[in-house]
């Protein structure tokens, strides 16, 4: 997995609550058997005016000029500013793959849906929960037309504002370590293979019906 240490980047505001993963990456792009190729279809239904399908390249599409992602001043953004319950709905990890491939490595929101939140950490994307008033302030700053550039420092667990002000944030210590070191968490789990085998043997003793021969 791609490591995440610090990132300095422009903020893209998406002022909408309950953004579901169907919006982040619509279903017609889930037919791929690869982990890549989703970035051009991030927020496809909002980003383009025509209906997308996997055979079309972005050049063949009609861009929706009113969608914030297409605004010239947000090009190259790497931090997404979002509203509550971001990433709700389907468990599709393709949503995170699309964000990451587009270049969005940090998502700031007052709250996230559980499965999406967990999927982010598996792909080098850092979701950060901030107080609603701080999120509001950031949206207000962006509404003035001024851009906003932030530095996110995972090791220190702080966000540095242009004013020099810093905001601290919480992150699960295991997930933090995985992100900082770009760890394969399956490898970490398998260091406990002995404990898993031991548990499994006892579990089989207690509940042999769970280990029936299928079919």
């Amino acid at each position, binding site marked *: 997995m791609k490591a995440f240490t610090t990132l300095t980047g422009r903020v893209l505001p998406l002022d909408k609550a309950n953004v579901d993963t169907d919006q982040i990456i619509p279903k017609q792009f889930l037919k791929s058997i690869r982990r890549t190729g989703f970035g051009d279809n991030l927020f496809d239904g909002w980003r383009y005016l025509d209906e997308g399908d996997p055979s079309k390249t972005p050049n063949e599409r009609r861009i929706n000029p009113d969608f914030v992602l297409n605004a010239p001043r947000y090009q190259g953004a790497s931090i997404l500013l979002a509203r509550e319950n971001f990433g709700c709905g389907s468990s599709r990890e393709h949503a995170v793959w699309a964000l990451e491939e587009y270049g969005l490595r940090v998502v700031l929101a007052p709250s996230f849906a559980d499965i999406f939140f967990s*999927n982010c950490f598996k792909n080098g994307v850092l979701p950060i929960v901030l107080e609603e008033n701080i999120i509001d302030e950031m949206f207000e700053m962006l509404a003035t037309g001024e851009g906003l550039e932030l530095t996110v420092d995972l090791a220190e667990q702080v966000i540095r504002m242009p004013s020099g002000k810093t905001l601290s944030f919480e992150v699960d210590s295991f997930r933090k370590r995985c992100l900082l070191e770009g760890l394969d968490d399956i490898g970490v789990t398998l260091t406990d293979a002995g404990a898993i085998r031991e548990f499994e043997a006892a579990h089989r003793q207690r509940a042999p019906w769970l280990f029936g021969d299928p079919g």
Partner: protein
Amino acid sequence: MAGRTLYDKLWDAHLVKQRDDGTALIYIDRHLLHEVTSPQAFEGLRLAGRRPWRVDANIATPDHNVPTVKRSEGMAGITDPIAKIQVETLDDNCRDFGILEFAILDPRQGIVHVVGPEQGATLPGMTVVCGDSHTSTHGAFAALAHGIGTSEVEHVLASQCLIQRKAKNMRIVADGRLPPGVTAKDLALAIIGRIGTAGGTGYTLEFSGEAVRGLSMEGRMTLCNMAIEAGARSGMVAFDEVTLEYVRGRPFAPKGALFEQAAAAWRDLVSDPDAVFDAEIRIDASALEPQVTWGTSPEMVVGVSGVVPELDAAASAGQRQGWESALRYMGLEPGMRITDIGVDRVFIGSCTNSRIEDLRAAAAVVRGRRVAQSVLQAMVVPGSGPVKRQAEAEGLHEVFLAAGFEWRDPGCSMCLAMNADRLGAGEHCASTSNRNFEGRQGHGGRTHLVSPEMAAAAAVAGHFTDVRAMLAGDRGGLA
């Protein structure tokens, strides 16, 4: 020591290791796979040179993008070349790793969350995961079941475990009995309307109370299926005789003495009387009416006698903005009566409502009636091969066909429209599925979530209508 909740018990029984950093290693008993979220996991497994930890814990079936017509043609019936590669990839992966698959022509193929319980592959007390958020369905069996992403699919394949943090406990008590014509789906929608789509985030839900105890296993599955639409990864219902009788005799369920041994252990799969929940919600089930969603989130829901809300009723500026945007997308006006919303297509199916009882209930409404002229298409998509055969044995397909419904082959179909079954832009659909998100059932499509009975009634009327009144008419009375 304080009593434990059902979730606490399931967690404790699967805890391999509690780590110092607060995470825990949880053992997974059953892993269900389908074609959409597994290919990258198998690829990851191969790249790392790993093998599945316990092959017999896995069962796969293609469901998301299989066509619901021309099933007898098998793979040749999949006309979309990209979808076909994905289904073939599942076949290849299952063959290479020795995983049991109910492939496209297997009589047991179907929607993964219908298939697991139907085959007895979902058992009480299990941990069940699948790369699909509606895995919460299996919680109906007093199991700890939830959706996972593709990286976690790979994790479970490789280690039979997941790294987790324990969620909080929420009890939802549905008091009283559901009135006739009001279903588990209506209860689920009413709960989501009450607590919101993020109300259950961070919690495991336990559904309890008289109304829940009174549900069949299929009703409980419908209820738990929708837990994720309330933001909770898992929803569950305590074990009882209803659970036991459903499981008995299923192909993968234990038999004979082993079944009796299991049954004795399963009786403990209830929350202790003195268990402490972090949150509790009570809802009066006896006061509910059939529910219809009007917006683009399952929480945007109202009883069938109600109206699309006025924007001033929004609780916050954010909610108002969400409602405005939803109404624009849905082409509806505040204050409009739900029964004035016309229906262009009707979809009866999905992991929420495609089981035999759902089809029986819908057929009872449709029997002797016709789909309204104004309805472009009404389709029934059974949840699995066995459901389809059972329905045909009961003659339900004839009822649907005579009324003008299409009778399809099993799959996820128009719930998420990955295959050819989808809405056109601007079309309103009465759908028994679980999500009314923008574009969910087709680009620009407008979904209204309802029960099978209500979908059937809408198909006949051409607009939403209280199914109870329609059925009361049959009896010569008024609702």
